[in-house]
């Protein structure tokens, strides 16, 4: 009985991407790829989002921002790092300001490879993240039930 898997709402943030991956993310919403078929909606409000799509590498300036957006999202949440830069910094990994991929700021669940990543891969990554969310949700519910049982036993 998963609710999140059927209705994954996305929030997209461009960390320091060249916009290549971002254009592909937007392409997912267009008629040929149509992410809305899966119930995906791209929202700008992290409080209403389930899956965090990050493109581009993380540097000193945008690390707190990425963390901030991640913190504002409600539980359970998943992170999808799109593109080579989001994975490791890509061709910019040696730069003085780049601290690495998205994983250097927040925990990542799915990596989508590519430079730029293809819309089909991105969709695949989002759906994988939705499945991961389903598992997280189940775990959360089990833990809550366990906590209730523990508190009622006291």
């Amino acid at each position, binding site marked *: 009985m998963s609710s999140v898997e059927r209705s994954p709402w996305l929030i997209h*943030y461009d960390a320091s991407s060249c916009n290549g991956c971002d254009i592909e993310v937007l392409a997912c919403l267009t008629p040929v790829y149509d992410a809305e078929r899966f119930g995906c909606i791209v929202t700008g409000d*992290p*409080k209403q989002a389930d899956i965090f799509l990050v493109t581009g590498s993380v540097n000193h300036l945008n690390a*707190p*921002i*990425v963390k901030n*957006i991640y913190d*504002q999202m409600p539980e359970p949440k998943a992170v999808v790092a799109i593109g080579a830069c989001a994975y490791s910094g890509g061709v910019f990994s040696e730069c003085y300001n780049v601290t690495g991929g998205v994983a250097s700021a927040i925990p990542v669940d799915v990596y989508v490879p590519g430079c730029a990543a293809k819309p089909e891969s991105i969709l695949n990554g989002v759906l994988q993240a939705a499945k991961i969310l389903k598992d997280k949700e189940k775990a959360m519910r089990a833990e809550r039930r366990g906590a209730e049982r523990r508190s009622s036993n006291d």
Partner: protein
Amino acid sequence: MTLPFFLVATPFFFGLLVLIIRADRLRRFVVMAGSAIQAALAVALAISAWPTLPARYEATVPYLDYLVLGGELAMAAFVVVVSAVKKRPLTLVLGILQAALTVAGERWTGGIEAQTHFYVDQASLLLVLIVGVVGGLIIVYAGGYMWTYHEEHPAVKDRRRLFSFTTLSFLGAMYGLVLSNDLRLMLVFWEMTTLASFILIGYAQDEAAEKSAFLALNLNILGGLAFSGGIILLAARAGTVELDALIGMAGTANAAIIAAPVALIALAGLVKSAQLPFTPWLLGAMVAPTPVSALLHSSTMVKAGVYILIRLAPAMTGTTVGYLVSFVGIATFLMGAFAAVSSRNAKRVLALSTVSNLGLIAACAGVGTYELVWVALFLVLFHAVAKALLFISVGTASTGTGSLDIESMGGLIVDMPRITLFLIVGISCMFVAPFGMLVSKWAAMEAFINLNSLVSPFMIAALAFGSATTVLFWAKWMGTLVRMPDPNAPRGRLEEKVTRYELNAQFSLMFLAIAACVLYPLVSKYAFEPYLLGAYGKTFGLDRSNMMVTVLMVCMTVAVPALLIFISGRNRRGLSAAYMSGRVAGPGLAFKGAKGAELRVATRAYYLDGVFGEGKILRIGIGAGILLVLIILGTVLI
């Protein structure tokens, strides 16, 4: 005769007593006692006169006409002296005119003996109770407020004795005005309220206060002149100076005779209730201390203006004058509402809202069918209570925040939670369904629809637009109050200096406001419907089931949010930050700007100066008002 007489005399007695007491605390005690006693007398009159309404009383005061004449001339003399001292030539001329008209009036009406001096019925009792209870509570409030006022305004000379004397005597004058049937007697009390207003507006004795006081005096004397003119015409044409006789002639063969007197007296009523084009005097009067604004300029004195219009309604219905009065009223309703949108000064918004609602009452009274008079009476009741509550809460709030700017009341729910509660209840009562004012506006719409006259669609359109605009400026204010930028801030820190007199008065008025909204079907059934039966031969009441729906909803609207908010206090999960996008600078509302600089957020409501700019709106309104008033005067001359 005894009880009405005592009711009128008691506040004067206490006022004079207060004048001679120098000790502040003792004087305050006497003021509170006097306020309580007069309120008790008002209630006593209501209860005792109830079974035998309407009741007529003849005054057995010896030499009453000489007292009336003397009083009038004394007041005119006062005006002349004050205007000479303060070098106000216009007022001087008006004062002399007033004296002249009094003497002329005496020549015309001196021979006429009134049979009924005082007339008590449901409408006058409504005003009596409002003056007594609401007025009494405002005086209690003033007992606390004026002490803080002088601490905050050390430059203002402490004339609290004069203040207490004037406010108490004013109550007596209001009782006299409301209960009078002899129009000459009513005029004396009418002029007394004008003088009380003049003294109290000028309390601070600075330039703004003096200017506003004289503006109010000029316009209200003008209204008084119209009133005098009306009495003289009535005496000359119909041989009577009594109000019930005047109304009795409505709709009969004598109707044409009374058209001119009715027009002039209605004009006086329009001046007193600050309808266009006379609105500026009320707006200027807001420089007075808050209890004055609450007592005179929203709940009682301006109500006298619409009270006389409601009384005259049977004589105005279907006549040209009646329609003209209602056009003035509806124009004021619209213009007042529009102008209030762009105003940032809290008292100004309240003043414009007052004028707007009085305009609606005047519009109902001008068209004057029994349905619309029902609406007018309820508007008087709900407005008096809610506006008093709002004014006195704003007074305390502005003392706490140090400013009358609505934007300074941002987040007041954290700083002054109790005052915010009073403000929210007061504001809700003014525009939110199912509270009183909205029920009255709904009934007004239904009444205009049922009127099936050519003016109906215009009135309804004006009501629709005006009603929508009131939602805008009231909800805007409520939103400013509930903004909680920092939910963890220490609560109530600005409420420490609020006196218990203020809190008691505010709490009582809040309770009264809600009680009025819940009990209004009873008021309708036992008070207003009999009045309409008496005045029109038929009565009107809202459909019982609709009334029950609104009462139930009032209970829900009060209880449900209160309950839920109370429950939410037990939230153990903590709070999250407000949405401030990504680049936040720590807790609280600030962004990180270039080079890490912190940029605090400042939000404010829309004021829409371009569209609803006060100056522009009032100019249009005053122009329209002058035109209509000239037409009314035209009907008198023809």
